[in-house]
């Protein structure tokens, strides 16, 4: 069915943009100091294959394994006069050439010999640390086996498996305070999403009321003045409105939990030119629609003009709304901090100064997903309501 193809196209576009935008952010994350690509866990040499397996000797230096860790031979230190040297225990013999009995030998007393030289023993045989040889950037490096780290995941593996896989398994990684990142994001979203959508709804409702009022107003010259006054009033930045509201006594009250989010909704819908611009755009749409002949024709026929205007209004309004959501999600940061609402905005600011890049990236991807979803809903609405869109696809 052609509609299914259209729908699939829109969904595909959404997914593609989401994928690409998260890819860009993940790439940024990858090269930052907090990168999850760094080696972290100790290396397990079971099953390690020489010349194939990758090992990291520091958090960032990784290379190919050139030797498996083997139990090194025990060694002893022998003092030749002032010269202290280490030898494998098996190379050291008594003066007579026999093997040394380490249970009875006396340190710094009994003479021992290595080859032709003789000195005194200073240590009992002890195994050295297991070492491995790793070729890093063409240079053979030796490192203790217990210091070796398992290499971090490759970028694609992390991006696909841990990040996006983590969305489904609910585990992306830890945040700065040890809590799972995804959990923090969801906790924050519980506040931020209702605030943002509530602000949008409020702005749309108030805007529609204003449009109706301006249309009713029998003084056409006053309309321009009122419109400009509304725009001017709404240009006040969110923090200034919030400031004055706080001063005027609308404070976040711990006993009444819904005051703070409600206040956020109020200042968000009004400030940062949200309401003003929304009003201007809606009025433009309504005016454009009103002058259409089919509305006049319907009026002449006695049909409800409202019923005829509705589909013509829903689409532009939803486009305006979808654009506004992105803007609101930006402004909500300020509003949340003013009213101490523990939402995504406040969380992102905290993540920015900690810094916790993983949390920041996850929040951003989440917000981007929300914005994209709203745009997708709007596109689907258009497919449902406007028959011309469906026809364009059929026509090819």
């Amino acid at each position, binding site marked *: 069915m052609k509609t299914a193809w259209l729908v699939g196209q829109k969904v595909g576009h959404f997914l593609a943009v989401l994928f690409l935008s998260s890819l860009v952010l993940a790439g940024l994350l990858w090269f930052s100091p907090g990168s999850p690509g760094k080696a972290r866990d100790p290396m397990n040499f079971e099953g390690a294959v020489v010349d194939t397996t990758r090992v990291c000797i520091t958090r960032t230096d990784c290379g190919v394994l050139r030797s498996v860790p083997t139990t090194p031979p025990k060694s002893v230190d022998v003092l030749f006069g002032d010269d202290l040297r280490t030898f494998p225990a098996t190379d050291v013999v008594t003066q007579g050439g026999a093997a040394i009995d380490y249970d009875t030998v006396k340190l710094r007393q009994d003479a021992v010999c290595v080859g032709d030289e003789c000195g005194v023993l200073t240590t009992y045989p002890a195994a050295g640390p297991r070492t491995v040889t790793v070729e890093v950037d063409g240079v053979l490096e030796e490192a203790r086996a217990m210091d070796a780290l398992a290499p971090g995941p490759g970028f694609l593996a992390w991006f696909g498996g841990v990040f996006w896989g983590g969305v489904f398994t609910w585990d992306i990684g830890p945040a700065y305070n040890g809590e799972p990142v995804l959990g923090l994001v969801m906790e924050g979203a519980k506040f931020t999403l209702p605030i943002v959508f509530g602000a949008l709804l409020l702005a749309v409702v108030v805007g529609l009321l204003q449009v109706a009022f301006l*249309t*009713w107003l*029998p*003084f*056409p010259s006053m309309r321009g003045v009122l419109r400009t006054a509304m725009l001017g009033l709404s240009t006040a930045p969110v923090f200034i409105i919030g400031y004055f509201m706080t001063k005027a006594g609308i404070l976040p009250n711990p006993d009444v939990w819904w005051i703070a989010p409600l206040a956020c909704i109020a200042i968000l819908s009004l400030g940062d030119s949200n309401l003003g611009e929304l009003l201007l755009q809606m009025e433009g749409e309504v*005016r454009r629609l*009103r*002058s*259409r*002949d*089919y*509305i*006049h*024709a*319907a*009026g*002449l*026929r*006695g*049909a409800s*003009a*409202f019923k*005829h205007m509705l*589909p*013509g209004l829903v689409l532009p309004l939803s486009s305006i709304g979808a654009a506004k959501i992105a803007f609101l999600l930006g402004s909500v940061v300020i509003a949340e901090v003013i009213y101490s609402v523990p939402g995504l905005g406040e969380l992102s600011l905290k993540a920015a100064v900690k810094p916790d890049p993983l949390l920041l990236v996850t929040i951003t991807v989440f917000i981007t997903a929300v914005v994209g979803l709203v745009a997708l809903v709007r596109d689907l609405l258009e497919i449902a*309501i*406007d*028959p*011309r869109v469906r*026809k364009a696809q059929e026509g090819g």
Partner: protein
Amino acid sequence: MSAAAYAPAPGAILTARDVWVGVQVGNLIKPIVQGGRLTVPTGGILGLVGESGSGKTQFVRMVMGLSSLEPGVFSGSAIYKIGDTEPVDVLDQIQEFSPFRPPGVDELYPERQRIGWAWPLWRRRFRQRLALLRRLGVGFIFQNPVGALNPYLRVGSQLVEAVRVARPKANRAEAEEGALHWLAEVHLKADRHTLGLYPHELSGGMAQRVMIALALAGEPKFLVADEPTTGLDSHIRLEIVGLLNRIMGQGDLSGIVISHDLPMIARLCDRLAVMYRGRVVEEGPIEALGNLKSPNHPYTRELKERAEALAQGKHRRSGSERADAGGTGVVVGRGCIFRTRCGLYARAKAGSGILDTARCEGDLPALDHIAEGHEVACFAGTKLTEAATWEYGEADHD
């Protein structure tokens, strides 16, 4: 102004007098139609002719209550007398509803009694006015067919809606039957498939027919067709004209046809009104068009010439046409506004004419009786007959 001045003309279904339409631009009001007058005889069709920008559409829309000017200013009277009902002045009704007068109106327009603002669609008073017209039984065929059909609704639902105008008590089945009937009337395939089409799926000619069906479905007694064939291919145009001829020829339908296509008007209409730059310059029976030699306003003459030239395949551009291309709106000033294009005036200026050029420059000609039921706004008046033969005598030498 006493009520007598605005009484309906006898035997006329619509009498429009002194209609003045303007739109407010900034602090000024730009007039679009001035002194508009129309008389549509009951059972007859009036053809309104003029080039684009002459204000004919705005004039008729205002008279029908469909003005989309915002903010629009208008005055005048448009009296409908349909059947035995009381005559109703549609523009009069508006006066009662507008509490606000534009400033300074009384000084500038001492003769205008009624000035109102064109109100947007959903104001109750506006809807009441439209309801009035609906009760009287009027229909409107819009200029752009695709624009006049709601693109979000199927043709069927819009037709059903229109059918319910005339028969409010019809149930769904009856209304659909009615819709199919009207589709057949306009020579479209009357089946469910057509009802299910969306407007963008219709061709230009089909959309025009659907619009005619929509207008007819309300069973109007008064029908207005605004440029019904503009923008259509020529063979479709012929069909639409034939359709309109058939529909409007049916006994008791009166109406107005607006066009700049003179031959179509000649075919369809009983009366003629010619508009130039917002003013009606000629009004009379369709026979007054006659042939090229008949006495007409110089502008009507020019239109006839052009139609003739097109019909014969000649492309004759008179110099005066180039001199005055595409003006819109009423021109304000002294004297006759047509004189920049008027062949008579040019000849009189050159010294060999029948006109008194001083009058043309000084005064605006009012509609003047030159024959039975035929009025022309030209100072040449009854001398137009002379002007005709004389001018065309010369033209034959080309």
